[in-house]
């Protein structure tokens, strides 16, 4: 199996799993019960994990709130601000048109609460225009929420420059860094951000774990009412084993990122160059240089993405497609099928972005894996082209 859908979630590092197991078995204390050894042990393990996560993103441990995933972190950041009385006079939020649904749909909810949402356009590479951002900020602007990297097309934004603009304008800046953390250097200091979301599953940690960095100057209203866990920001019993795994993944990423990123970058470049050389009707999406390491995304004229996805899958190569037909296939209604908003935003026409494909690598991918993808692609593409009424043999 060649797993190349790592923006959907990476394989957990074996050391992460090993570190978690005791907290699923014998170390089952509740961190809130830290007056006896079993609870104290869990409490200390959670705090150790907090230090590792903080260390990975240049924050301090008391600025880290553990959540259940990136979606929860994004919801907590945006709704938490909107609910807070300190910011009740500001009703404008700026996002980009390629944000994750957990940002877009959260903002749509806020429209009903009287908020105005500005969606910044992106260029054909998926970059926002910094002048557009500057012009969009008004006295009413509460928040700018721009992701650091897009998982579908791989494009990396200039988060530091965006942060600088927000800082100068006195606007709160949230970064959805779920696709970036563990794959590029992410520093809340360099980014000048106030809020930053991350998820463990995207950098060799466990699924169902996440964290939100909250700058001490920022006030958030908790989304859950309950006890006082996570410094009052997130009530509910902690997922101790998950948090321990997330912390271990953060520790490993901090120590080893400089080693595995260049390898992933080189393999990504090799795959991208090979694919581009195969067919003149294959087009790379996203920014070719400012992109996540090992991220390759493309669309092919004449053929449909889900069929491409299925054929790679039959060759034991697992990727992703943003085609309408691969979206929400288990939906009850065909109206729920829609082409990726990211691909349409970067200018790929609706009928053509049907043929999109994304391969995202992990540190475990080898050169042999990439050679296999390169080997099978011509057969798959030729087969589907022959079947297509659009394709005319020249």
């Amino acid at each position, binding site marked *: 199996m060649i797993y190349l859908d790592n923006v959907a979630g990476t394989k957990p590092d074996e050391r992460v799993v090993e570190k978690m197991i005791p907290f699923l078995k014998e170390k089952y204390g509740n961190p809130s019960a830290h007056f006896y050894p079993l609870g104290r042990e869990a409490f200390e393990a959670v705090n150790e994990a907090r230090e590792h996560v903080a260390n990975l993103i240049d924050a301090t441990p008391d600025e880290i709130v553990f959540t259940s995933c990136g979606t929860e972190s994004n919801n907590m950041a945006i709704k938490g601000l909107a609910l807070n009385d300190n910011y009740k006079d500001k009703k404008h939020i700026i996002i980009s048109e390629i944000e994750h649904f957990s940002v877009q749909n959260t903002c749509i909810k806020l429209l009903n609460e009287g908020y105005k949402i500005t969606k910044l356009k992106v260029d054909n590479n998926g970059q926002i225009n910094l002048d557009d951002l500057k012009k969009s900020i008004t006295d009413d602007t509460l928040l700018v929420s721009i992701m650091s990297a897009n998982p579908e097309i791989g494009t990396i934004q200039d988060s530091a420059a965006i942060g600088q603009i927000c800082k100068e304008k006195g606007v709160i800046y949230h970064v959805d860094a779920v696709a970036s953390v563990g794959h590029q250097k992410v520093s809340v200091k360099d980014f000048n951000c106030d809020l930053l979301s991350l998820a463990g599953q995207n950098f060799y940690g466990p699924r169902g774990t996440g964290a939100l960095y909250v700058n001490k100057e920022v006030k958030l209203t908790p989304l859950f009412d309950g006890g006082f866990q996570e410094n009052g920001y997130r009530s509910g019993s902690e997922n101790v084993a998950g948090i321990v795994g997330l912390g271990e993944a953060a520790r490993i990423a901090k120590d080893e990122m400089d080693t595995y990123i260049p390898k992933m970058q080189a393999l990504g470049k090799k795959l991208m160059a090979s694919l581009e050389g195969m067919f003149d009707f294959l087009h790379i999406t996203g920014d070719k240089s400012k992109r996540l390491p090992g991220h390759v995304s493309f669309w092919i004229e004449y053929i449909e993405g889900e069929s491409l996805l299925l054929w790679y899958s*039959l060759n034991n190569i697992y990727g992703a497609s943003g085609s309408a037909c691969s979206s929400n296939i288990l939906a009850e209604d065909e109206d729920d099928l829609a082409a990726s908003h990211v691909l349409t935003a970067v200018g790929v026409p609706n009928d053509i972005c049907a043929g999109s494909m994304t391969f995202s690598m992990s540190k475990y991918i080898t050169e042999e894996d990439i050679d296999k993808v390169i080997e099978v692609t011509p057969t798959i593409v030729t087969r589907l082209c022959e079947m297509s009424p659009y394709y005319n043999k020249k």
Partner: protein
Amino acid sequence: MAKGPYSDKVMEHFMNPRNMGEINDANGVGEVGNPACGDVMKLYLKISDDGIVEDVKFKTFGCGAAIASSSMATELLKGKTVEQILELTNNAIVEALDGLPPAKIHCSVMAEEAIEAALKDYYVRVGKDPKIVDEMKAKIKDKVKH
């Protein structure tokens, strides 16, 4: 075999589509598309003088369900009379494929529409009013109701 949301039958037809290609001397060609997802199916019919489908081929731009529906439709068409193929509904295609996910039923509808389009083209070519297809379809539906 990777099954995913599709039945073994769908995957079998996806991997080994029957009657894929074009018929150079086809006397009925229909091309239909689904605006919701961009799928397109082109169906070629070779109908004999006594109104029997002698040969049928397809080309499809679409997902696994669209390709499997196209392939199954061609299997069900071969050797049938014009009247018989008009009785072929999308439900029959879905049934023959051992089901499709709800969001993919439209792929079988596309196959049914392609058959109608190809037959209309056939009637035009033989000098008849293509509306006859709609009239025959209406009669079949009426018969089913009763």
